[in-house]
């Protein structure tokens, strides 16, 4: 029935199941057929591939997903209280009844994905999978010169395997703060793909909260392209899922374009989270900033792979990358892989990594002032995260994230 080779490994069997689902759906357009061809020959990423060296998808093959049908109303209450329009997807499907559509100068469409964004199914296998199976998503357009304020994009789930496909386009001088919240409970797979095109002088702030269920899988790929003097400024807070990978491919295509890919990964138990970035400087005087903080307890594993590519035309590039990890248990592990590929001769690029435990002198200093040990530890962890959290300009979103961090910490201490 399928062109796949006989399954020789659990991941192949899973890939075949995905492909069978594609076939069962019947008529497909050319984009989907092309992606299906790619997926059929490529399958799912394997640890033998360099980009997937630190993250094995094997647990995905062994997972049994919960049925997607359960009610999501309870999950809605867990959404941070942000006074802004919101687009709510449940198990990958848009839910008008739970959403508050934006009024005014921002165009939002949902439904079958409109292809033609920045996504590259031929390069990323999970994007081929997404393209093959995507059914729904948001298509957000902010016209030239429009300040669209804040929009919440929420994904709620309690089961199933879904592949949302979102597109965000900002015209010249447009502005938008997009608050993406992924939350759920139960065992499921959320495999979204984002395309974010930022026009000249435009500014997209993308605040991403990943608080998926403890048995969930979160595999997200985002492509961003930033035109001259535009900014894509993102912050990712990873707290949930048993296995998560967030991959970002950002291209700075116009002079003085800037990208910020900051993240904090807080993991406990046997959680695994991977933040992988590829920043490509294709134009002169472009800027990239990446500060990635990991706080790891239990047997958790955090991964950061950051690649900066500088084209020979991209003189005066300014690239900065820092990965820091706080290991709160002897079994926790962090893997850090910076990569610089520089073909221009007048650039400033730096990267660094630090790994450590909480400082005994700092702990004693706090305790000597009467602060109980648990509170002292919490204060120091919060201080470690400050550098990443403080620059978040959206006050309400930052407070929501601080609350999530506090809740996470209380759970670790319990």
């Amino acid at each position, binding site marked *: 029935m399928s062109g796949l080779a006989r399954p020789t490994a659990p991941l192949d069997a899973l890939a075949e199941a995905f492909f069978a689902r594609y076939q069962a759906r019947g008529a497909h357009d050319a984009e989907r057929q092309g992606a299906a061809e790619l997926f059929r020959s490529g399958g799912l990423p394997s640890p033998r591939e360099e980009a997937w060296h630190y993250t094995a998808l094997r647990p995905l093959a062994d997972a049994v997903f919960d049925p997607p049908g359960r009610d999501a109303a309870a999950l809605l209450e867990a959404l941070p209280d942000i006074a802004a329009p919101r687009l709510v997807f449940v198990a990958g499907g848009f839910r008008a009844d739970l959403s508050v559509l934006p009024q005014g100068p921002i165009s939002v469409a949902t439904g079958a994905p409109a292809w033609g964004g920045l996504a590259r199914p031929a390069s990323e296998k999970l994007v081929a999978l997404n393209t093959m199976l995507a059914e729904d998503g948001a298509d957000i357009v902010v016209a030239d010169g429009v300040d669209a304020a804040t929009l919440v994009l929420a994904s709620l789930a309690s089961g199933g395997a879904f592949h949302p496909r979102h597109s965000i386009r900002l015209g010249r001088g447009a502005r938008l703060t997009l608050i993406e919240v992924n939350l759920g409970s139960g065992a499921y797979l959320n495999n979204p793909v984002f395309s974010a095109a930022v026009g000249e002088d435009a500014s997209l702030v993308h605040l991403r909260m990943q608080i998926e269920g403890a048995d969930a899988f979160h595999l997200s790929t985002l492509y961003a392209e930033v035109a001259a003097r535009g900014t894509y400024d993102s912050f990712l807070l990873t707290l949930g899922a048993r296995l998560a990978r967030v991959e970002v491919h950002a291209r700075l295509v116009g002079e003085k374009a800037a990208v910020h890919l900051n993240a904090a990964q807080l993991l406990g138990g046997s959680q695994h989270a991977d933040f992988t970035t590829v920043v490509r400087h294709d134009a002169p005087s472009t800027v990239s900033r990446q500060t990635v903080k990991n706080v790891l307890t239990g047997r958790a594993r955090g991964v950061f792979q950051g690649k900066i590519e500088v084209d020979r035309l991209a003189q005066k590039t300014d690239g900065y990358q820092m990965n820091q990890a706080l290991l709160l248990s002897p079994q926790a592990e962090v893997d850090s892989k910076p990569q610089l590929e520089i073909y221009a001769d007048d650039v400033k690029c730096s990267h660094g990594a630090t790994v450590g435990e909480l400082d005994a002198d700092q702990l004693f200093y706090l*305790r000597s002032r*009467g*602060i109980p040990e648990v509170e002292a530890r919490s*204060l120091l962890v919060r*201080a470690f995260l400050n550098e990443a959290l403080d620059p978040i300009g959206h006050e309400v979103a930052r407070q929501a994230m601080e609350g999530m961090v506090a809740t996470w910490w209380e759970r670790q201490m319990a």
Partner: protein
Amino acid sequence: MLEIKGLSASVDGKAILRGIDLVVPDGEVHAIMGPNGSGKSTLAYVLAGREGYEVTGGAVSFDGQDLLALEPEARAVAGLFLAFQYPVELPGVGNANFLRTALNALRRARGEAELDAVQFLKLARSAVKRLSMADDMLKRAVNVGFSGGEKKRNEVLQMAILRPKLAVLDETDSGLDIDALRIVADGVNALRGPASSALVITHYQRLLDYIVPDRVHVLVAGRIVRSGGPELARELEASGYAAVMAEAV
């Protein structure tokens, strides 16, 4: 207030304190002087409960409680405060937040109402002013980028806000110019009262011109070898430690 009996302690298996007997009554300021390596800082850390300082003998009673049985934070709740010789930097922790967290932790543990941000800032600002500190000291991260003098003043600020019963000052005068010294001394003197005491550890007599002690003790090789009134500090300044050390051996 504080009663130390036969206190011995070692660090990394090496005996540093070798039987210290010392009583600091309520309302008195005692000075501990001694040459480098005599165990002055070790005594301060043992009193505050720092890890790595192993008590090998003796007892310490603080207001009737067994001090050595308490965790460091419980010692603070009991009313002990150590002004560090080398105050620790806390990047990412704002000074005001740090001070309020500490004050409220103490108040909570003592069953007192916590202060809200407004009440606290009022208290903190007036303390900052009294100590002639720059206003932005409260906004900056704790001790980060502070000069040596600013760090010491910040210790005194914490002391002024936390109002301990017993302040242990570990070489708080080291690295201070004369103006800073005066401010630090004023801060300590402001806390003097019938219910509060201080143990001032110093290498030099200079600080004791400003904080006049009731008693002076000379620590040599982990033992108190002489005790006397404030005149003992001046005698040491004139003759040096060599004479006392010779007597002690």
